[in-house]
């Protein structure tokens, strides 16, 4: 662990057991599909077999007569939605499109697009009844590839959609290009012209899925008083409440969302799919309704991340990156909103260069509407950029890390948006990687190679609200509203323990429902430990203030005459008077009632972060298979609150990156049918496919956070795609520009099968 200027902490930096750990390992924790409210019945969604079709008619009469059926809903049961954009924290959504994505109204835009839903006494009856819904389609030609969709003669997903240009104008002709944007600094043409070396390449990545282990599930009860209770798997209960309220046109006050434990999200559990449908089925049937997806529905009917085609032309001058021209084309899926902007804003973050010109296209295709996926937009862009940087460095015979260090961004470097960086740890990360024993060890043997790559993610702030209640025994309830995906109960409890100078074990963190705490934005953008951590810190300060005034009352002095240090309140006027936190907690009733603190905030200064990865691979020339021999991931995390969970986040991000690099892809046939919608054929890495990943923590504290925390979870998925591609290039002498680097691609590109 490389640490730069860090205070001495008591709790922060230790590795306690997570508060939710025992329940999870003993199988007692309740996940989305577990709640069984009294009288619950089961729903099933009917989905489109076509990738692109107009819905001519839907006949539910036969299905309604099927035994056990208690209710059927279609898009006609939704209130007419309007074109209104709502910010979900990690990505905005147009509510009419959200509504259409949940249940299609006029057209189906991808295979697996939901059309109708049935509630019945048993799951099997619901499934059989759903098959009896007759849908008449006018089948249209699908377009599933971003380049095809951009052609002027491409079939249009929406005949009334025009390209939204910079400055708010729209294109004359309707188009599948939903938005075009550009970022410019300096003069890229001139910069390239004066470069010592220019490399130009086009890169392709496939649509990939988050692959969370727990499929979406939602149970809803439309209660007799008109309120709705929803038990669901989500990264943000408040965002579910807001979306359901908008889609159903019901005030948020009538909706209570109870967030269950979550079996992974990675951005994919921010949008809603099932919740309003379950609610409407409950209204129709008069019973609580449970809707659960199977794996095929998850692949075909939820939001993966974009397939991309990215062109990069980059020049180096005097051993540094000098000028870059890039065009990013991202598949948005069925409705606009790919993370292409984030791709553009992150791909050059590791570099300080003069001349930049980036063009971005957000393109709709007949595939599922994309949603956030861990550092959305950044990995594909980094794959392209870091591959070109690698090629520049190797051709110039400069060590690829040294080349990056020569060009490294630092505090004050302007980003492509024009905004300068605050204190960042890019150079510290690069220096740590360069001197790491992995990098200084030789790599030898035929078909073996080493690759490196860097990556960046902004990290989010946004809204958090927490309440801290002090119990008479000196323990503390921490009531928060952030879904715990990566150990945030622990990381927040640790920050509160540090603030209050009390033991970690004295804190009981509770993730509350939407009726029980103020608004909290999603657990996304690597924001929870940062932003809810700031709220926890402020609420802790609030508690100390309150308790100081209680002590003052007991000692008949003013609160200013009370100090708090190492868990003990001292009277500045009389050094014989002191009370421990626990002793004072017991005096609540005598000093003015229960002791509590709170904080609500919009977090600023989240603090972007960098990672640099080193990977060694071996390619089997007979089979085209790439084996990862060694992997080291170096990352600036600001301050590691719980180093084990930081390492876990880094290792998890790398594993997902390995899958993306080597085997994962949505495979479609010419009719837009996904051919590999199962974990058998959508090849995520298994435990046997990844080596031990050495996570190296660098701590350059974030000046915008009381404990110096930076977001951790997203950065580690950014570098692996390029790092592995660079290693394969080193091993084979061939530069691959298309992902995944599957054995099939290697065999076909390396030797044509001979």
């Amino acid at each position, binding site marked *: 662990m490389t640490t730069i200027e860090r205070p001495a902490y008591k709790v922060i930096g230790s590795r306690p057991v997570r508060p939710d750990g025992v329940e999870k390992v003993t199988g007692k924790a309740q996940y989305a599909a577990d709640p069984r409210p009294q009288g619950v019945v089961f729903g099933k969604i009917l989905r489109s077999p076509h990738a692109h079709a107009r819905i001519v008619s839907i006949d539910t009469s036969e299905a309604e007569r099927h035994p056990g059926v208690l209710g059927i809903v279609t898009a006609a049961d939704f209130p007419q939605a309007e074109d209104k954009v709502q910010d979900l924290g990690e990505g905005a959504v147009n509510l009419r499109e959200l509504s259409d994505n949940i249940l299609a109204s006029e057209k189906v835009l991808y295979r697996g697009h939901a059309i109708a839903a049935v509630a019945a006494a048993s799951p099997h009856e619901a499934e059989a009844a759903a098959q009896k819904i007759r849908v008449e389609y006018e089948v249209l030609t699908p377009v599933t590839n971003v380049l095809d969709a951009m052609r002027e003669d491409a079939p249009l997903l929406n005949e009334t959609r025009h390209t939204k240009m910079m400055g708010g104008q729209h294109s004359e002709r309707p188009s599948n290009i939903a938005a075009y944007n550009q970022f410019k600094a300096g003069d890229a043409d001139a910069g390239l012209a004066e470069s010592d070396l220019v490399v130009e390449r086009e890169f392709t990545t496939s649509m990939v899925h988050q692959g969370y282990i727990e499929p979406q599930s939602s149970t809803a009860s439309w209660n007799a008083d008109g309120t709705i209770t929803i038990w669901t798997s989500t990264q943000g209960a408040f965002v579910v409440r807001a979306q359901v309220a908008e889609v159903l046109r019901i005030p948020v006050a009538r909706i209570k969302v109870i967030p269950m434990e979550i079996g992974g999200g990675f951005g994919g559990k921010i949008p809603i799919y099932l919740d309003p449908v379950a609610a409407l089925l409950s209204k129709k049937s008069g019973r609580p309704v449970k809707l659960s997806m199977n794996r095929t529905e998850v692949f075909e009917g939820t939001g993966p991340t974009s397939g991309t085609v990215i062109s990069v032309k980059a020049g180096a001058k005097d051993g540094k990156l000098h000028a870059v021209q890039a065009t990013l084309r991202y598949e948005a899926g069925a409705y606009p909103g790919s993370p292409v902007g984030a791709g553009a804003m992150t791909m050059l973050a590791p570099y300080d260069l003069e001349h930049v010109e980036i063009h971005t296209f957000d393109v709709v295709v007949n595939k599922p509407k994309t949603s956030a996926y861990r550092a959305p937009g950044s990995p594909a862009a980094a794959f392209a950029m870091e591959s070109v940087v690698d090629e520049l460095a190797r051709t110039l015979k400069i060590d690829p890390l040294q080349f990056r260090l020569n060009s490294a961004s630092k505090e004050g470097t302007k980003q492509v948006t024009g905004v300068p960086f605050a204190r960042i740890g890019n150079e510290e990360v690069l220096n740590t990687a360069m001197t790491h024993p992995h990098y200084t060890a030789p790599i030898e043997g035929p078909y073996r190679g080493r690759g490196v790559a860097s990556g960046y993610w902004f990290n989010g702030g946004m809204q958090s609200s927490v309440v801290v209640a002090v119990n008479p025994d000196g323990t503390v309830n921490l009531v928060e509203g952030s879904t715990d995906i990566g150990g945030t109960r622990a990381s927040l409890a640790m920050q509160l323990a540090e603030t209050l100078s009390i033991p970690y074990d004295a804190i009981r963190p509770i993730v509350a429902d939407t009726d029980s705490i103020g608004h909290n934005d999603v657990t996304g953008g690597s924001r929870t430990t940062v932003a809810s951590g700031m709220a926890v810190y402020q609420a802790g300060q609030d508690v100390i203030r309150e308790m100081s005034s209680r002590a003052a009352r007991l000692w008949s002095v003013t609160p200013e005459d009370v100090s708090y240090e190492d868990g003990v309140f001292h009277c500045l006027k009389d050094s014989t008077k002191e009370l421990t936190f626990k002793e004072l907690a017991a005096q609540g009733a005598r000093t003015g009632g229960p002791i509590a603190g709170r904080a609500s905030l919009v977090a600023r200064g989240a603090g972007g972060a960098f990672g640099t990865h080193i990977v060694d691979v071996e390619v089997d020339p007979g089979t*085209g298979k790439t084996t990862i021999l060694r992997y080291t991931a170096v990352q600036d995390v600001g301050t590691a609150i719980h180093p084990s969970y930081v390492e876990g986040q880094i290792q998890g991000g790398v594993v997902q990156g390995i899958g993306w690099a080597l085997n994962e892809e949505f495979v479609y046939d010419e009719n837009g049918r996904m051919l590999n919608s199962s974990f058998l054929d959508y090849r995520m890495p298994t435990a046997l496919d990844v080596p031990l990943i050495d996570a190296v923590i660098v701590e350059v504290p974030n000046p915008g956070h009381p404990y110096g925390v930076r977001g951790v979870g997203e950065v580690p998925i950014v570098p692996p795609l390029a790092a592995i591609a660079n290693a394969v290039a080193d091993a084979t002498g061939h530069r691959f520009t298309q992902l995944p680097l599957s054995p*099939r691609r290697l065999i076909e590109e390396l030797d044509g099968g001979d």
Partner: protein
Amino acid sequence: MEAFDYVAPRTLDEVYGHLNNGKRTLFMAGGTDVIVQLREGRRECDLLIDLKRIEQLTSYAFDSEGTLVIGAAAPLARIYEDVDVRRRLPGLVDAASLIGGIQIQSRASLGGNLCNASPAADSSPALIALGATLVIASVSGRREIPVEEFFLGPGRNALEPGELLVEVRIPAQPPRSGTRYLRFIPRNEMDIAVASAGVRVQLAPDSDTLESVRIALGAVGPTVKVVDVTSLAGRTADSATIEEAGRLAAEVATPIDDMRGSIIQRRKLARVLTIRAMEGAIERAKEIR
């Protein structure tokens, strides 16, 4: 998935009592394939007959002639963990330890893998290389066929209505022989063979001359491909001969392009896997057991 009846008989006679009554009937010798197919609506049935309670179908033993007789529903984990089996038939262990995946091999069976008749099944190339036969039974008697005659096409096997597979018989292997099965998957677990090869070689008693070679390929045709390698008999087991075997295998392969692999890739794999499996088989043939 539609509702269906489930029975778990104790004897084969009980099984026969459930057959020939017009019901759509499926056997379950583990469930690795059939349960998944039922749940996904790829198969339907009125009656599912669980074979796991029948002693004769779930046990295995070497008979007096050294033939390994394996009940069609015997769990793979028990077979490949058997010390005797590991010593005498390592080529069988190669395949048995791959089928289905570690977590379900205490239920998965050879019989189930064979009857599912996937061209990519891991059992069949190894069993064909080993010269194994299958015993098929019905209320009217038993018949025995070589494994290579069992497959009619993808998902189609030689069982007639009223018949079931009861035994896999692997004859005692000749001295100075060795068998190796290799498959290629993009991952290291939880995957289906893109291509596979089972190879048995028998060497002359006191030289490296090949007395016989058997090669079977998986996932490069609608059924397992048996490669005609009679031309290799009498040749020295050296790298030129092994390369020739690989060339013959690639010639025989008639693969398709699908989501799991391409024609180019599979033809190359047929060659590479045959070469590597043959090298392994020769090595085993030279070991003293």
